[in-house]
């Protein structure tokens, strides 16, 4: 997996390319852990170029969401495929993650009251 990232204000947009699966999860885990340690806890995960997510990958996304939320941040999802949305629905995680189709909307959402939408 390759990952690029860029910032928009205090929001970091992470763009993984490839699969988020058991074997390749460490790269994404390390990137998010580093951001959280630096206090950069407003994270958008752009799934545009993610070709496959398995249950471990989804579990990793949950774990990073939880660690960001504990520091008053959030992980929001951008451009999930129809398949990814289906996986979120059948695992009841659609009620956890905020999902966006536009980077502007995802970034802007950090300034709204969406922080209070969920409890961890």
């Amino acid at each position, binding site marked *: 997996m*390759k990952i690029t990232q860029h910032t928009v204000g205090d929001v970091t947009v992470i763009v993984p390319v490839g699969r988020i699966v058991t074997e390749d999860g460490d790269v994404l885990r390390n990137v998010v852990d580093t951001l959280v340690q630096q206090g950069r806890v407003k994270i958008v995960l752009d799934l545009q170029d993610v070709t496959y997510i*398995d249950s471990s990958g*989804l579990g990793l996304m*949950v774990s990073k969401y939880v660690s960001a939320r504990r520091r008053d941040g959030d992980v929001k999802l951008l451009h999930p495929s129809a398949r990814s949305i289906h996986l979120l629905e059948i*695992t009841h*995680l659609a009620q956890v993650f905020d999902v966006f189709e536009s980077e502007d909307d995802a970034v802007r959402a950090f300034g709204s009251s969406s922080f209070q939408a969920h409890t961890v």
Partner: protein
Amino acid sequence: MTTTTPSGRVLVVDDDRALRHALAALLQDAGYQTEQAGDGPAALATLERQPVDCMLLDIGLPGMSGLDVLARARAIASPPRVVMMTADDTPDTLLGSLRGQAHAFVRKPFPPARIVGIVNDALRASAAAALPIEVVSASAEWLELVAPCSLEIAERVQDFVMQLDAKLPDDVRESVAQAFRELLSNAVEWGGRLDPTRTVRISCLRSKRMLLYRISDPGDGFDIDRLAHAAICNADDDPLRHDRVREDMGLRPGGLGLVMTRALVDELIYNEKRNEVVLVKYLD
């Protein structure tokens, strides 16, 4: 961004000169040393002269077929990891490749640029990924394999098995592939403890009206009442409960496989010990 320059020698074997050159050029650009051969005897002569790390091998070669080359290549002292390529979409070539212990199988046509990723994956895989898979039955209607407990082997098996289902509607194929992957990963990781000296038995049956997969692992099974760390036990309004439990237990993130699998197939049946599972997907 993390980047690494690949290294290794790759032999491209195809009688289509233009495709062979295009694949070799792409691999060279990616950092690989390449050799080329236009038929089976030339490929074997190259292997005897100097070992290669990976061989891209067309099946429909003139004279000696790619499957014959695969069998001969497996017999040399340091066999390469072999990726079979073919335009033949019948199950026979796929099953022949599996029986011949090919590492991977790719159907033509494919975007040439994809080949770099395929070779990267083949060469990055650990030694365990190259362990032999025992083929008990290799008919399209009844495929039965015994495979070492390794995630990389599981990935190889899944790749082969799912190509047998290539003609199914996308949504059915994707659901079955994901469910099969989850169950097989569970079997080798939790049942087999990722110990490649232990094995899982995998049966894939295809009838006109259903697909049936049975996976038997060497573990002791599990008690579903003790799976608080799995999302299958979450209340509908508390989808993160399993994650808190896993953190308390010191487990890595996860626990979503069962709940995901149950929703993707029509039936999911465990034996009493829960070290064997059958998944069924109806086609009508």
